[in-house]
């Protein structure tokens, strides 16, 4: 068995598990008992693959970037998750989970969202499937992310303000969990990243694994390679990285690299680099690395990129870091902006701010001659134009 997948109780090494109150136990148990069997059914796979192709627009290209390659002296390929419907990798997971929800007989979908990308990806699949959709979103984020709130509403979702705590993503997640407790019978909770209680981290990773599955055959077909030397992805909760790493986890020849948001710097209070600064703790039902003070109170993180602005990382990533299987680079707000402006100019691709962190990490890395690196370009930058405009 892979040492980078969970054991029976949902632990990746020391991290993971289901730290949930008894009231949530049946919810988690229902998923845990059923998800794997349901998704492995041929009919599920057929529907999932068809939607990924015809609705999401997969496979996404694996694009050889001549300009980046020349600059870094490595062979740099961009996995174009930005070309997915709704503009990011998030929809791979929401498609998978809504098909699962249907098979579990659920009528109502809830989700949490920070910047709104996960909310939009969830509202999208709910519209597609005719399911009721409720998105919990921090009151502060609702004010900051008006266009995505409008998108969700346009697709028929109800956006509920989370008014507790710091009124941001972590509190929206708490509210979604609280919503789920009394409503299990008809409600499925679509968590947007590889976080939360077991089985969410493994389930979301499974749905995102399509990214590395494609990388594998595209490398073979177009570049005659069995595997890349390095895979690089940004990490908020960790779902796009989990998807890009998935089929290479046990292939120790492949270097796995994460880019985290240092915000205004690792030595400031305004940072979200959990892999660097977090300590083992419990957040949203799993034991992982968490940004917290000495008393275990969760610290509100900071990143210019709303998708990386989360005080935890998935338990798989905590394990990958602790075991030395993966390394992490911390990228500041300014470095990410610069990398985004640069990619737009040199390649004609405007990346999401999150993905720009992965691009900026290239500057910190050393490469062997002719090293082949796949960078997961997790999303496009349309949603970030307001941030970019300040630098034009």
């Amino acid at each position: 068995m892979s040492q980078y997948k969970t054991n029976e109780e949902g632990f990746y090494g020391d991290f993971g598990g289901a730290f949930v109150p008894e009231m949530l136990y049946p919810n988690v148990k229902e998923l845990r008992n059923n998800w794997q069997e349901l998704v492995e059914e041929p009919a599920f796979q057929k529907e999932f693959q068809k939607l990924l192709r015809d609705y999401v627009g997969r496979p996404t290209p694996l694009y050889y970037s001549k300009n980046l390659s020349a600059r870094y002296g490595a062979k740099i390929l961009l996995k174009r998750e930005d070309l997915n419907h709704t503009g990011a990798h998030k929809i791979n997971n929401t498609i998978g989970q809504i098909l699962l929800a249907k098979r579990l007989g659920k009528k109502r979908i809830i989700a949490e969202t920070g910047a709104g990308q996960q909310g939009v990806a969830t509202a999208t699949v709910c519209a597609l499937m005719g399911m009721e959709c409720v998105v919990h979103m921090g009151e502060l984020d609702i004010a900051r992310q008006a266009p995505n709130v409008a998108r969700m509403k346009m697709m028929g979702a109800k956006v509920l303000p989370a008014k507790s705590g710091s009124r941001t993503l972590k509190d929206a997640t708490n509210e979604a969990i609280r919503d789920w407790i009394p409503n299990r019978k008809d409600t499925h909770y679509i968590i947007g990243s590889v976080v939360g209680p077991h089985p969410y981290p493994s389930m979301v990773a499974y749905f995102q694994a399509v990214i590395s599955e494609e990388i594998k055959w595209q490398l073979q077909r177009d570049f005659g390679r069995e595997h890349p030397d390095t895979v690089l992805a940004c990490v908020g909760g960790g779902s796009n990285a989990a998807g890009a790493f998935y089929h290479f986890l046990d292939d120790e020849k492949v270097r796995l690299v994460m880019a985290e948001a240092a915000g205004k710097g690792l030595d400031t209070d305004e940072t979200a680099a959990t892999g660097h600064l977090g300590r083992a703790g419990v957040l949203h039902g799993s034991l992982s690395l968490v940004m917290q003070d000495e008393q275990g109170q969760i610290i509100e993180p900071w990143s210019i990129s709303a998708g990386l602005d989360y005080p935890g990382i998935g338990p798989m990533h905590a394990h990958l870091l602790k075991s030395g299987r993966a390394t992490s680079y911390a990228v500041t707000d300014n470095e990410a902006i610069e990398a985004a402006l640069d990619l737009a100019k040199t390649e004609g691709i405007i990346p999401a701010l999150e993905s720009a962190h992965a691009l900026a990490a290239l500057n910190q890395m050393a490469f062997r001659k002719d090293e082949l690196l796949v960078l997961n370009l997790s999303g496009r930058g349309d949603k970030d134009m307001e941030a970019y405009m300040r630098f034009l």
Partner: protein
Amino acid sequence: MNKQQNKLQALFSNNKKEENPKALLSIFATAGYPHKESLPTVLQELSKAGVDFVEVGMPYSDPLADGPTIQKAGEKALANGMDLPLLFQQLKSVRSELNFPVILMGYFNQALQYGLEKFAKDSKEAGVDSYILPDLPALYYEEKVKAVFDAYDLGVNFLITPESPDERIKYLDQLSAGFLYVVANPIITGQRADFGEKESAFFDRLKGLNLESPLVAGFGISDRETFAAATKDCSGGIIGSAFIRALKGDNIPEEISDFISSIR
């Protein structure tokens, strides 16, 4: 169990021996609420008012299992500057005047970051008798936590709900230190509970299991009526949100005596 009874177990077994056992009343109070220095007064007044046992809430930034009232109280307490060292210090300062068991209630991460060993040691020194940590999974507790807490004679009381299967309830019964915390409806704190047919069926099922631990009803008890209904089938009931709402902080002794006399 041939071990010596702890205070909490003694409370239940002594009450049971009475000719007319009473419904045990428990109150949940957030440390540091409404004011930073309120806890000692609150505990003294609860003791005077004849409350049978108390949960002291450790305020937390991310209280997953709590409703808006307890969330808000926790936020206020944190803003007031409450933390665990201060909580222990305040509890210790009045512990000898309190004639009831004290249970510490909060989230596992708080104990984990404080250091499990130090958490147990400081709890013991402050006069804590037991814990409720709703997000601590039973299996993890057994494997990683129990031995540390046991060394200080501190146990954990687990939650059960109508959706908990028989086998699981029996397992949690064996693992619980003093009582089983019955959440009759699958709800978070602060919502009004119904004690109707479905709940009766649940309590019938519990009777059939011949559990060792006494049952205490929690979540959704807010007044005389819900307390009476909840303790029809349980040895006691815990009131949290309704108490927090009554505790304005202008005159704590009066607020507490009025509230408790409105319940029983």
